């Protein structure tokens, strides 16, 4: 028993030593330029590896390349036993449409006669019987292993014929996708209720259906060294600025990453200022938002596997424009938009101003209010900044818990949060009621943003303002504001100043900044648009 164990240990050790030596060898090999070039040339040979004329070898080749996975499905159809004429249909289970393969590929192939097949194989110039028989919408032909495997992995069916090197790929891709549902994070009362899904083609079709115009262009790039994710760039030719588009293409081309799981990966590669708190690219799950932005001369980037579509160049002001502003009456649109700016201001400044005024500028508070505030704070053992900071952090914890918590225990957060942390803490005298009110007001205000990512900027900068307000009062808040403004004025989105219609000031774009004028008065497109196509189809043109 003991000797057996020893032997096992020894063999293990030897194996490890061997693998270690191999590892070092391979390291050395990578360092040495000679072996490197040799391995490179070998890679190249792999790239152009072609199929043989033997069916069984070819099937084995495909299986070996994929590592003989359980989800590969091979169906052989014997046409003629003597001459060994066999056809094989290979597909990946779960990726392809079973029904279509049965009815449009396998069924016609079973009716194929030996004569027909031999005629085609012996005389390549004769009419292609296979493509006549197989009734799928796209049929392509490859001889390279890599291309066939790639196509197979996309869900297409491979049709192999014995004595032939050519592999036919039938387009039978069908994935189980989520159906189009209502938007979950950008909802409206009046307006379209559809939203993007994870499937790229569904998403582009939603836009195509809304803009039936030949100028709507779509370009594809494939990025991700490992995942090979499809990314598509959409714009309207003529309205979009060509120089911005070429810049986008250049930036998309420069992406080098293992995998792309969400459009935020692309966003972080192509945005102008990587370290800014403010988002410089809009992301939306609403097709109508994409359409309106395409019409303003912006571009959209669709990424496979996410319902969030990127839109750029984005201005700061756009993060305050909800789709609903344009669907409701213009007075309501204007009112709500101004309300949103106020809410953003509250989300950013309320705790800071509260702490600053309570610490440094008592004089600003009317006497009666001051007395009531002082009364609340009587017996609270902490300085107001500690109280404010702790409550802010507690709220952030509650919010995070609310998102991550399993649905079944969702009720607990509201009970713990509202009753224990709110009411009980005030009653116990740990925090003053006014602080709780200010923190909750801030929290509510933060949720009014139509785009979640601009609220993040307010959420984080709030702490900066809070500290400044506590240290040196309104003066500090004022200086903090200068810094934020300078930052906003300095960043750009694809070369367009981020703070654009305000600074630099553009008078003709003020129709859609703080005030939302009726749609017939939106004569011109904003500055990201092609400078030669500034005029929209508007009332003035119609009158002419």
């Amino acid at each position, binding site marked *: 028993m003991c000797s057996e164990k020893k032997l096992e240990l020894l063999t293990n050790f030897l194996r490890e030593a061997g693998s270690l030596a191999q590892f070092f060898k391979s390291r050395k090999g990578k360092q040495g330029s000679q072996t490197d070039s040799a391995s490179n040339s070998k890679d190249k040979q792999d790239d152009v590896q072609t199929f043989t004329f033997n069916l069984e070898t070819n099937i084995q080749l495909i299986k070996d390349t994929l590592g003989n996975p359980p989800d590969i499905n091979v169906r052989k159809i014997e046409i003629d036993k003597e001459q060994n004429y066999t056809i094989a249909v290979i597909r990946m289970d779960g990726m392809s449409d079973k029904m279509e393969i049965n009815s449009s590929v396998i069924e016609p192939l079973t009716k194929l006669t030996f004569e027909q097949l031999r005629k085609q194989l012996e005389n390549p110039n004769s009419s292609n019987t296979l493509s006549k028989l197989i009734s799928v919408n796209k049929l392509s032909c490859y001889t390279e292993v890599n291309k066939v495997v790639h196509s197979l992995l996309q869900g297409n069916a491979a049709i192999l014929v014995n004595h032939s090197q050519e592999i036919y790929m039938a387009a039978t891709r069908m994935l189980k996708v989520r159906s189009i549902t209502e938007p979950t994070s950008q909802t409206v009362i009046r307006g379209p209720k559809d939203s993007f899904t994870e499937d790229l083609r569904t998403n582009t079709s939603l836009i195509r259906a809304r803009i039936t115009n030949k100028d709507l262009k779509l370009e594809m790039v494939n990025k991700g060294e490992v995942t090979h994710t499809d990314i598509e760039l959409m714009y309207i030719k003529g309205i979009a600025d060509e120089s911005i588009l070429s810049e986008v293409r250049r930036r998309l081309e420069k992406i080098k990453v293992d995998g792309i799981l969400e459009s935020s990966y692309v966003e972080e590669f192509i945005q102008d200022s990587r370290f800014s708190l403010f988002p410089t690219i809009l992301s939306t799950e609403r097709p109508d938002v994409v359409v309106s932005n395409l019409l303003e001369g912006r571009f959209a980037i669709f990424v496979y596997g996410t319902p969030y579509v990127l839109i750029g160049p984005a201005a700061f002001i756009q993060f305050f424009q909800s789709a609903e502003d344009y669907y409701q009456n213009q007075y309501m649109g204007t009112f709500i938009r101004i309300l949103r700016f106020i809410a953003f201001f509250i989300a950013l400044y309320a705790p800071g101003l509260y702490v600053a005024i309570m610490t440094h500028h008592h004089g600003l508070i*009317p006497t009666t209010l001051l007395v009531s505030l002082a009364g609340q704070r009587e017996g609270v053992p902490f300085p107001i900044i500690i109280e404010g900071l702790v409550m802010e952090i507690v709220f952030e914890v509650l919010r995070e818990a609310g998102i991550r918590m399993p649905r079944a225990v969702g009720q607990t957060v509201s009970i713990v949060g509202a009753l224990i942390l709110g009411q009980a803490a005030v009653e116990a005298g740990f925090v003053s009621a006014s602080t709780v009110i200010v923190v909750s007001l801030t929290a509510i205000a933060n949720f009014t943003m139509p785009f979640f990512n601009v609220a993040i900027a307010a959420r984080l900068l709030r702490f900066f303002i809070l500290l400044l307000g506590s240290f*040196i009062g309104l003066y500090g808040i004022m200086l903090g504001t*200068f810094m934020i403004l300078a930052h906003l004025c300095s960043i*750009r989105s694809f*070369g367009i100043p981020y703070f654009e219609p305000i600074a630099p000031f553009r008078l003709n774009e003020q129709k859609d900044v703080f005030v939302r004028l009726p749609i017939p008065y939106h004569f011109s497109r904003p500055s990201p648009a092609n400078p030669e196509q500034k005029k929209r189809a508007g009332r003035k043109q119609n009158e002419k």
Partner: protein
Amino acid sequence: MNLIPTNGRNEIHESTGEIMNEIKIGRFQFFTLLFLFELGSAVLFGMGKDVKQDAWIPALIGTLGGCLIYTVYTMLHNLYPDLPITSYSKKILGKYIGSAVGFAYIVYFIYLATRVLRDFDEMLVISQYHNTSLLTIGLYMIATIMYVMFKGFEVFSRVSLILFLVHTATITVIFALEIADNLIIPVNLLPVLEKGWIPIFKSVFPASLTVPFGELIVVTMFFRFVNGQSSIRNIGFMAIILSGLYLTFRSLINIAIIGPDVRFRSTFPIISEVGLINIANFIQRMDSFVIAVLVILGFVKVYIFYYCALSGASDLFKLKKPEKLIFPFGFIIIIFSVFIAPNFNFHMKIGFNIVPLYLHIPFQIGIPLLLLAVALIKIKRSRLRQQDC
């Protein structure tokens, strides 16, 4: 000089009609810069306190004088459209004297930045932060200015545009509140010209003429950045006249509300004025808000002087990376703003009695006039020579 980090974004920028490598400021931005710059300390300390109820007359006359001085600057600029004053002084007066004059201007700008920073530090300490040191208050301000300085002048001019809108809105609201509270007593303005014209002219020259109007000498440092060079003169006049009218109006309201005697004794008349607002015992003590607005003015003014010193130094010493000077200059400004005077009274005494006469008049009027005269003579001579040939 370029203080903007480009991050390889030059190529795209051309598409939007602006060129990234050059600083370009729009006409409206130029206007707001000048407007806020002019208000600066003049709003803080109140103009022409010594002529009591007639304080608005020096402001009005100063505006006209300001236009004249500004004309001299634009004439110089038209002769050398691509250069700041530190460069064309060399062309006009020769390498050595010109460099000395340029260097003197850099020191002058640093000194003014220091003075303005001290003015606003003192305002904050006296009115709000009694227990905070001048150094602390100044450090916050200079840190912010340095941050914006790293972002570049173009960004600053855009910020100034937003600050202009904020400032205008606040001032309008405060004026509306003053009317609503029925604080304005026009009788305070009488009698007009109680002691004749002589004290008024004494007040105009040198005090009201040099601060704020003569301080426009700084524009000679960034004239060349303005987009649309042909309209520089008109925009400048508009900014000077509007800011002059605003200062006149400010003095009128100020006198009408707090009266000439209180104004004469008050250190910061505008704060005393706004402190009187009390509507229904709810809207009261607006002075904290006015201080916040005054911080805007201080920020703009210190920034511009600081920037001009920096830009002058990089121009004079042919620096490739002017960003390197931001920290040393900021350090100098913050340290000297504390040590420049032992107390506020001494600071004010220097500011009102010595600086206008011995610094402002030579630097704002003397040297520019001299430069213009020499330049014109030189041009005439070269033309005569050409004719001779």
